[in-house]
């Protein structure tokens, strides 16, 4: 099973055409293996990107160097996936067999 330990989801809300362009350019950087949960749309529209751990540092450095502000929407993707799994298992134990 694929795991997402250390992956984070960053949220960028482009507030200028320059920022929007910078974010669009990220989509071409295939080696970073970015997973765009919300793709770039327009100014003010959030862009959410799941970033594998090895790409976190280079990407954050790139955004900061280009003055593109970002926030961390999900600190640790694996933690949320684990929580989801645990909830499902717990619910399954109590479901009365029909």
């Amino acid at each position, binding site marked *: *099973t*694929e795991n*997402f330990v250390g992956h984070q*989801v960053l*949220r960028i809300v482009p507030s200028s055409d320059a920022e929007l362009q910078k974010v669009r350019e990220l989509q071409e950087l*295939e080696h970073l293996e970015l*997973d*765009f*949960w*919300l*793709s*770039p*749309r327009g100014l003010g*529209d*959030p862009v*959410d990107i*799941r970033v594998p751990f090895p790409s976190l540092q280079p990407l954050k450095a790139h955004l900061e160097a280009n003055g593109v502000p970002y926030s961390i*929407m*999900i600190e640790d*993707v694996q933690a*949320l*996936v684990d*929580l*989801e799994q645990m*909830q*499902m298992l717990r*619910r*399954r134990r109590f*479901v*009365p067999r*029909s």
Partner: protein
Amino acid sequence: TSTFDYTSYHTLEEIYAFMDLLVAENPNLVSKLEIGHTTENRPIYVLKFSKGGTNRPAIWIDTGIHSREWVTQASGVWFAKKIVQEQDQGLANILDQMDIFLEIVTNPDGFAFTHTSNRMWRKTRSKHSGSLCVGVDPNRNWDAGFGGSGASSNPCSETYRGPYANSEPEVKAIVDFVKNHGNIKAFISIHSYSQLLLYPYGYTTTAVPDKEELHQVAKEAVAALSSLYGTNYKYGSIITTIYQASGGTIDWTYNQGIKYSFTFELRDTGRYGFLLPASQIVPTAQETWKALEVIMAHTRGHLY
């Protein structure tokens, strides 16, 4: 199905078992149709809600075409139960005149893969000769602006359009069903997330002839949705509201003559994305249902 846990996410097997139970409990209203098989040979099921008659005007709702958008399949399960237990006159009026088709797991292979191997999987699980990567984006594979910008020709991309239109059996199954039925009047494809209600087109900036009416219906549907929990939605055509997307589902259905073609992007409170906590399944389904009621009632009142 009264003991089924609607407040939790479920596996493909559990959802298929739920569907069988719902049919068994409501033999005069619900039936299960098999419209095809997936790449990995899983059956593709559609629930039909009908009070009788043949080939009546119909409403189509699908969830889960992008497999990782789990809140959509979970909402589809909730909608199915809602339709059989709802006593309100609005739904009764609709079912007096129309059938409802509900495809809860529109991408079974991808959904199974999110439970067993990769929670973030979005596409189908097809393997096309000559490509390194697996899967096609089933919302770029329809014969509407297919191959245009707004989809990728790279098989490893999340928005890979596929080698040709309808290459994916999950898409072809719906195409054949819609063409054979011939009397579907509304087609609603449900995605998540980002709180949008969209109508065609996505592949071109040309406005659809029915833009005014669709915009008005979307406005009323969003108002009904937001009235429950205040969830803010934007609405408009795909290309003006999000971005250009070619080969999309509702562009094809609209071009087939299904005027009331809409896509939802369900809620996320902006903190979890696709990993929306299970505690938000029912509120999400409830608010979405209010918008669906508006669209279904408008369709019934404006049959064409």
